[in-house]
């Protein structure tokens, strides 16, 4: 009965014709979509896993004895510190902004997102340049207190944790803001009327109700910390990532590097599953519109404490580093050159294209999961978002090898001589493999808030799954999609190793220019492209903020 199946997929058949058969076909169709997307993303990972065969046993033994114990300790400490600090900063600031009125609150509301535009590796070299022994701060202190003054070392796990926390807390802040805002007034009123103090209401109602958002934010933070190379290498702190790089670049064994990277993948997978469990146990969908709780004014001098807390974070994470960049950039200023402007244009263009592609893929993935639930699609969706957890350079090799393989096999199979390697298609696919997790989070969260009853109603009215996607989910999801797009855009523009390896000729972005200068230790010269990158990143951030402010506010209630 092909006619009926087609009608079902097209979504135009009268109700009587969309029987169980077409429903089954639709489920199969969406399952195929999930698997296809997962395959695209997982292919580079599989390529990497095949390299494990080349791993050198004596090398592993060496690493186990002399490198890994220390590296594990560092990684664990770093990740714990960063997760703890970003949770405290992100949730704390979100709570302040969302619940209270204090001087500057409306400005901080968006300004606290600004650090997203400053890459962690840039913040790292600014911090070390400013704070290390030879930097201006300690030099001034020695002039005051004598030349024997010694402060605790800046280039340490603690220093790296501080920089990463200041860079990554906005992820948690953004998600917690939307959680606290959407809890609305009533949950708080209920809590207070039951006799809880403000503090108790936060710990016992608001925070538990925001668990999925907090967990989603922390998952991004932890994955990015695990995969970070740029920041820890500025601090010369040895982590799991630096051990991977050492195996590849120093010991010439990509196989061993892949083996270590697969361990990171496993950790990422377990974390993602755990996060999903956390989220999945309870339902968090909205039951209708409600008013956001208006901020409560803070009394007396304590309101200035709130202002000082926000300002302090903003100064450390954004304003001071920015000032240092400006000082460096103006000291070596040679005027605006066309090459930098072109680089900025390419950065933005690549970012936009990647954001569009990632969000479209994330939408398909999230919708397919909804249409065809089950263990297989669940697993595939988790796998498809794993690219965020391994170091970019290692993923870049996987992507590159997978693409060159495709270039060899596909022309032979199809008889058409076409190539992806070295084209924009290659770099965009690589970005999807890396950043699908970033786009998937907001889209999935947004979709979870669309009640099933809407789907059921549309289905009863005869709308097929594609029609429901286009006419119901897409319009309702628009805010989430833009949030996802803005997050991905900011991330892609900062991305370094994948861009380096897969960019087409001449597509040098701002991140590539920063790489070239910092790899030669020329931090001052890297200030200019860094500033350009920050400026370019501010545009999508303004959008993120607007979404955070105006996302249709809904109240979350546990399901009955």
């Amino acid at each position, binding site marked *: 009965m092909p006619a009926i199946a087609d009608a079902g997929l097209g979504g135009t058949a009268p109700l009587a014709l969309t029987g169980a058969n077409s429903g089954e076909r639709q489920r199969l169709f969406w399952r195929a979509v999930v698997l296809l997307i997962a395959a695209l993303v997982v292919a580079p990972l599989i390529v990497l896993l095949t390299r494990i065969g080349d791993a050198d046993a004596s090398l592993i033994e060496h690493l186990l004895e002399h490198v890994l114990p220390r590296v594990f300790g560092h990684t664990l400490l770093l990740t714990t510190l960063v997760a703890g600090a970003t949770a405290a900063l992100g949730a704390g600031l979100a709570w302040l902004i969302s619940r209270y009125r204090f001087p500057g609150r409306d400005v901080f509301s968006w300004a606290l997102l600004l650090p997203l535009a400053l890459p962690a590796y840039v913040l790292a070299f600014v911090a*070390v340049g400013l704070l290390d022994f030879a930097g201006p701060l300690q030099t001034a202190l020695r002039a005051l207190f004598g030349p024997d003054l010694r402060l605790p070392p800046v280039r340490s796990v603690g220093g790296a944790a501080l920089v990463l926390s200041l860079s990554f807390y906005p992820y948690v802040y953004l998600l917690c803001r939307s959680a606290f805002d959407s809890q609305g007034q009533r949950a708080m009123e209920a809590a207070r009327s039951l006799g809880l103090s403000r503090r108790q209401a936060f710990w016992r109602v608001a925070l538990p109700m925001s668990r999925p958002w907090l967990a989603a934010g922390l998952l991004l933070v932890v994955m990015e910390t695990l995969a970070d190379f740029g920041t820890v290498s500025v601090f010369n702190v040895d982590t799991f990532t630096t051990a991977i790089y050492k195996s590849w670049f120093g010991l010439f064994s990509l196989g061993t590097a892949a083996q270590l990277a697969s361990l990171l993948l496993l950790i990422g997978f377990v974390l993602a599953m755990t996060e999903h469990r956390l989220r999945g146990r309870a339902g968090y969908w909205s039951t209708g519109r409600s008013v956001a709780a208006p901020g409560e004014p803070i009394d007396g001098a304590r309101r200035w404490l709130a202002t000082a807390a926000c300002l302090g974070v903003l100064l450390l994470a954004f304003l001071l580093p920015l000032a240092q960049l400006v000082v460096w950039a103006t000291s070596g200023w040679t005027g605006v050159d066309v090459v930098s402007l072109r680089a900025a*244009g*390419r950065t933005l263009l690549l970012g936009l294209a990647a954001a569009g592609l990632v969000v479209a893929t994330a939408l398909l993935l999230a919708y397919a999961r909804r249409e065809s639930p089950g263990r297989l699609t669940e697993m595939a969706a988790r796998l498809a978002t794993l690219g965020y957890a391994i170091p970019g350079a290692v993923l870049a090799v996987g992507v590159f090898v997978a693409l*060159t393989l495709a270039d060899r096999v596909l022309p032979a199979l199809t008889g058409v001589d076409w190539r992806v*390697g070295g084209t924009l298609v290659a770099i965009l696919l690589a970005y999807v493999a890396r950043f699908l997790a970033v786009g998937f989070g907001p889209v999935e969260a947004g979709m979870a808030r669309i009640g099933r009853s809407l789907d059921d109603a549309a289905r009863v009215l005869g709308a097929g799954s594609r029609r429901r996607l286009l006419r119901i989910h897409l319009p309702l999801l628009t805010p989430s999609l833009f949030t996802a797009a803005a997050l991905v855009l900011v991330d892609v523009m900062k991305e370094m190793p994948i861009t380096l*390896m897969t960019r087409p000729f001449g597509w040098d972005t701002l991140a590539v220019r920063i790489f070239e200068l910092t790899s030669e230790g020329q931090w001052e010269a890297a200030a200019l492209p860094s500033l350009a990158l920050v400026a370019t990143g501010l545009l999508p951030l303004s959008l993120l903020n607007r979404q955070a402010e105006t996302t249709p506010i809904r109240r979350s209630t546990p399901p009955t």
Partner: protein
Amino acid sequence: MSRPQALFRTLGAVALALCLLPAAPALAGEKLVVYSARIEALVKPMFDAYTKETGVEIQAVTDKEGALVERLKAEGANTPADLLITTDAGNLWQAAQEGVLRPIDSPALAAAVPANLRDPDQQWFGLTVRARTLFFNTQMVKAGELSTYEDLAQPAWRGKLCLRSSKKVYNQSLVAMLISEHGEAKAEEIVRGWVANLAAEPFADDTRMLEAVAAGQCAVGIANTYYYGRLMEKKPDLPLGIFWANQSTGGVHINVTGAGLTRHGKQPAAAQKLLEWLASPQAQNLFADVNFESPVNPATAPSAAVQAWGSFKASPLNVVEAGRLQAKAVRLMDRAGYR
């Protein structure tokens, strides 16, 4: 929802407009593709001069050495690259091991590049010499107190030494050369001595290390000379001196920026011509002087700035040893606790 859409539209338009800014006019003639681990600013002047002289256009792709070698391996016979440039001999050795380079028989290169600065199998050739030697704080140390790399392992230097991270290939090459000269056991003893003498955790790059020496965090450190040249050009008043190490023993440790033809490049003849030109006197000064390095070609004198540091005896060991012994050196440094 019109505002976010409008914003994304505007962003797209801005991006397109910026991308359409006039680029350098593409030439229709011959074209060579170079994979370069040396950054664009330090290769482009030579390429531009070559284009001007011969009309051959050169496209350079920059990345880390390891990534470029993996790229050549993955591309295999399909590679668009004709030439690979790295900033050290170790990675060229590794590229040759991986079979991505092509041996060439060139009398011009054999004459221009001393035998210890090129691959014995003629797969790659040094193009500039980069010396890695000692730098000291002139207010804390007299030049007369310094002598060799090995001496920095002595207890007299406890708490006075600064080093760059062992993860940088320049230090891996240095230790590889120590292994080549002294054997593994002695080399490990020296590195352990260094670690015991450190005044601070190893630095991420040579510039930061030199600044720490100048600030008095430590008295002496090991760095490549061009970082010193760049730093002193900007801050000539720093109390920082250069000392040529091992002058009465094996000579200063040197490394090269070098290049080799790719095995599957489509234009070996044209690529060889470019390589020979880069080693010729007319390009050597340009190549070395852009970064305070020394020319490999004995017929070319270093720049006045480099000559001002005085002449030195360089280690006569073949730089190929840096590659052959690199993995050993990395393991040794791991064992010795040199991070």
